[in-house]
């Protein structure tokens, strides 16, 4: 028997690593991947709680999160393609059009 807190701590660690990757990486695609990592960490929490509480709502929500992640990946990668075409670079620091 694995206590639920183990799953939650693992999920927190994965989420924290996702945040660190989001802050540290300089490549747009990798930053996008760290967002996926954070979504995955949240999914683990959903499934762990769904199991611990004996309800299936959590698993249904994981399903929705995966759908949203797929939609996000499609649109986000299209935006990345546009940025790469316009800037000739994937470095996040060269994408500063909105910077004052």
């Amino acid at each position, binding site marked *: 028997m694995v*206590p639920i807190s183990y799953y939650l701590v693992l999920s*927190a660690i994965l989420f924290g690593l996702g945040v660190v*990757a989001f802050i540290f990486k300089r490549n747009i695609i990798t930053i996008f991947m760290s967002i*996926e990592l954070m979504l995955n960490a949240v999914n683990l929490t959903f499934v762990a709680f769904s*199991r611990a509480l004996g309800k*299936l709502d959590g698993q*249904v929500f994981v399903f929705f999160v995966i759908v949203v992640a797929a939609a996000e990946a499609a649109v986000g990668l299209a935006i990345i393609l546009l940025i790469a075409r316009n800037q000739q670079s994937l470095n996040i620091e060269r994408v500063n059009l909105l910077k004052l």
Partner: protein
Amino acid sequence: MSLELVLFFVLAAMAIGGAVSLILQRHPIHSALSLIVVMVALAGLYLLLGAEFIAAVQIIVYAGAIMVLFVFVIMLLNAGVEARTNVSRMARYVGLPLGFFLTVELAYWIAGGAGRQAPVSAGPTPTRELARMLFREFVFPFELTSILILIAILGAVVLAKKET
């Protein structure tokens, strides 16, 4: 130590190792492959939690479709090794401690708060129940996601087409 616990620790080590590797690798392809390792490990954890359907969806949709899309775009753009920049001083001295603080804090409070909860019971979840729930109680959000996907496809096509 039961087999379940051993499996949990192996899969957890795989997931954390993959996530750390995602941060340390400098080439986007290597980062993407590390992320696939994390997702496969998470699918194993879902199986351990008895969520078979979610594990299968994780492998098929996440590790299959979404990551293939990522790898495809990386190859298409011919993304090279990440450039080292010196602008990230702020990230190094403020972001890293804050990131680790967030991780430790989350882990600490979760471990303290949920430690008294009952252990996770084994046994698979019937997918039939999941389907019933999805198509009865959550049928409206389910239909909304189909519209979301449609809009996402339209958006991706409009964004990625060549400007005339």
